[in-house]
């Protein structure tokens, strides 16, 4: 009986296992294959060695990723806490408003920011109309980071909100009862209890920020190349699949290390948070 049910279970899992082999394992192996071969298909470490020329881009990507994550956290935590204190109806409206822009295409959203920030964009036109000098916003690191925060911040809000909104009201009252004023309730109870949400939020913002492309091309005017753009260029423009694969591989390993590090902050038996 037991044996047949496990056979059944294996049969049920089969389509997914096939899917994983074709679309996850095989591409990864191909990335690794390209990374360690040259154009003729011979084994080489040349692609890996060539990466030292891209160290600056790696560092810039990680640096922008860190700044984006920190800004997102600073905005998202108070936002998530504030809405969780309101009525259920208000909460669902706010979460809805947060999600609505994400229903639009990522490229369109980024194009919209170009329109807003460019020298002849909405802001500068308005400034000129009331007699102020225009501000140079587009093609700056600030614009790139703004674009990343705008696109990825919801992924920080959602896991933190889901942890805070599930928090037992009695626990907040217990903290007040034991002598905490409003600020101490947040620093001593709400914040530490939100750690699982914060950790998954950090992972969900940091990983796409580091590997993103397109945002820096459009809002940074191509002056602030990030690692995602470099990879794209290797495949789309230079047709150097081997170098592109080696950069991808190293990026992947770096992100895995970061995620493993972040996961040390949450232990298994803590509830809440979205684990990816």
């Amino acid at each position, binding site marked *: 009986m037991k044996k047949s049910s496990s056979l059944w279970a294996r049969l049920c899992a089969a389509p997914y296992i096939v899917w994983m082999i074709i679309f996850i394992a095989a591409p990864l192996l191909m990335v690794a294959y390209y990374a360690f071969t040259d154009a003729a298909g011979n084994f080489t470490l040349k692609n890996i060695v060539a990466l030292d020329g891209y160290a600056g881009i790696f560092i810039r990507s990680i640096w922008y990723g860190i700044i984006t994550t920190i800004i997102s956290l600073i905005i998202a935590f108070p936002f998530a806490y504030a809405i969780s204190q309101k009525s259920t109806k208000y909460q669902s409206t706010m979460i809805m408003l947060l999600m609505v822009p994400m229903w639009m295409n990522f490229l369109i959203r980024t194009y919209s920011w170009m329109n807003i920030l460019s020298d002849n964009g909405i802001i500068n036109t308005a400034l000129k109309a009331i007699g102020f000098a225009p501000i140079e916003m587009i093609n700056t690191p600030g614009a790139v980071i703004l674009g990343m925060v705008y696109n990825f911040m919801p992924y920080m809000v959602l896991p933190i909100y889901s942890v805070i909104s599930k928090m037992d009201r009695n*626990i907040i009252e*217990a903290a007040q009862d*034991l*002598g905490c004023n409003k600020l101490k309730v947040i620093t*001593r109870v709400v914040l530490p209890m939100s750690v699982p949400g914060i950790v998954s939020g950090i992972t969900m913002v940091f990983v796409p920020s580091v590997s993103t492309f397109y945002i820096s091309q459009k809002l940074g005017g191509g002056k602030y190349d990030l690692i995602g753009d470099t990879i794209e260029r290797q495949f789309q423009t230079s047709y150097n699949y081997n170098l592109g694969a080696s950069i991808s591989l190293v990026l992947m390993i770096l992100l895995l290390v970061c995620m493993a590090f972040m996961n040390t902050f949450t232990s298994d038996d803590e509830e809440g948070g979205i684990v990816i």
Partner: protein
Amino acid sequence: MADNIINLENITVTYDGEKVLKGISLYIRDKEFVTLLGPSGCGKTTTLRIIGGFVEPDSGDVFFDGKKINDLPPHKRQVNTVFQRYALFPHLNVYDNIAFGLRVQKMPEDEIKERVLSMLKLVNLEGYQRRKISKLSGGQQQRIAIARALVNRPRVLLLDEPLGALDLQLRKEMQIELKRMQQQLDITFIYVTHDQEEALTMSDTIVVMNNGTIQQIGTPEDIYNEPKNTFVAKFIGASNIINGVMLEDYKVAFADRIYECVDKGFTANEEVDVVIRPEDIKIVAPTEEYLTGFVESVTFKGVHYEMIVDSYDMKWTIHSTKSAEEGSFVGLNITPEDIHIMRKSENIADAIMVDNNVVSIQGKTYECDENSLLYNESVEVQISSKDVLIVEPSDDLICGEIEAINKRSVFIEVVINTGEKKWISHTTNDALTVGQRVGITFDSDDIYIIRTVESELSATTEEEDE
């Protein structure tokens, strides 16, 4: 009074248009174990939360040590709370949970350590300081919650149904332990429960509440032996409640017999409620001397047998360690000390909910403040005699003839015979005459809807979890 630690004066609280507390006044003596007892939704938890500072009264005042503390936030009050589901901090271990309040006060760590360890000893959990909260059983979490509150040395400890989630055995142990802690620490405990047995076991004083009002305040013995009205009598334990007539001092008639009793001070032929506890009725051989009837059912209840005896259209509940045979003909021996007479200050009538906020009493509809019940649900309404208003007779109202008028010290008691039922009204109108036809009406918020006690008790255990 100097030894009152907490005074509540005429507190009202309204949630979403529903009056949860209807003007309660209560003083609590220092170093007492006080229990607020009542069914779910009676306002007992709200009362506790007012003392804790989590609810602000709409009107009325809260005094602590003679000082008004209406606006004082919870973190500035000298009270601590043990919450219904413990509310321990899951991100901290046992030690840090207990130390929480002291750390907020910025007490030196070595002093904190000393206090936390002595608290762990008090709650019998020495050596547990490094444990995670999630690794503790319900009973252990409960003890930590108590230690976390007591370590701050509050003047008053508030406990909101703290034993609700524990099994019976553990509950009994914790009841004894809580009582021991209260005596050892010599502070005030205010305890909320819907379990009458728990209240009777632990308390110095019990406050019985229903529908946002206080029904009776007294010692456990007072409450049990001399319930003030039928609600208290029913809630505190299944009782036999019979209509009776007080013939003269020490003489009451009920069930077609005349009994001697120990009560006096009623007017001649005043209608009263007679309460007889199930354990006070002795089953004897059926002779002329006693009330007689057939045993309808016998149920073994562990410590005693519960027997239902049918006599004079009344089902008598009797508890005894000896069982009678089902179907047998028995006599019921009731001694004068076991007969408790209650003045009918409350009018209780059967009624039907016909719509939200509309109840039908004796076929006439009245507005009331109850909208959580089913249509056509049979209920009882309880209306204080002072709230029964005498008006001109009309087809829309319950009408009847005045049967008796008794002058009391500050009011006049009027008995109105409506055929189906006699209503008692306390009024100051001295122009009424016996035999006059009158109508009666009530303000909507004076009508208390009572679900039958059985359904209420079974609902209580589920609803209290919220």
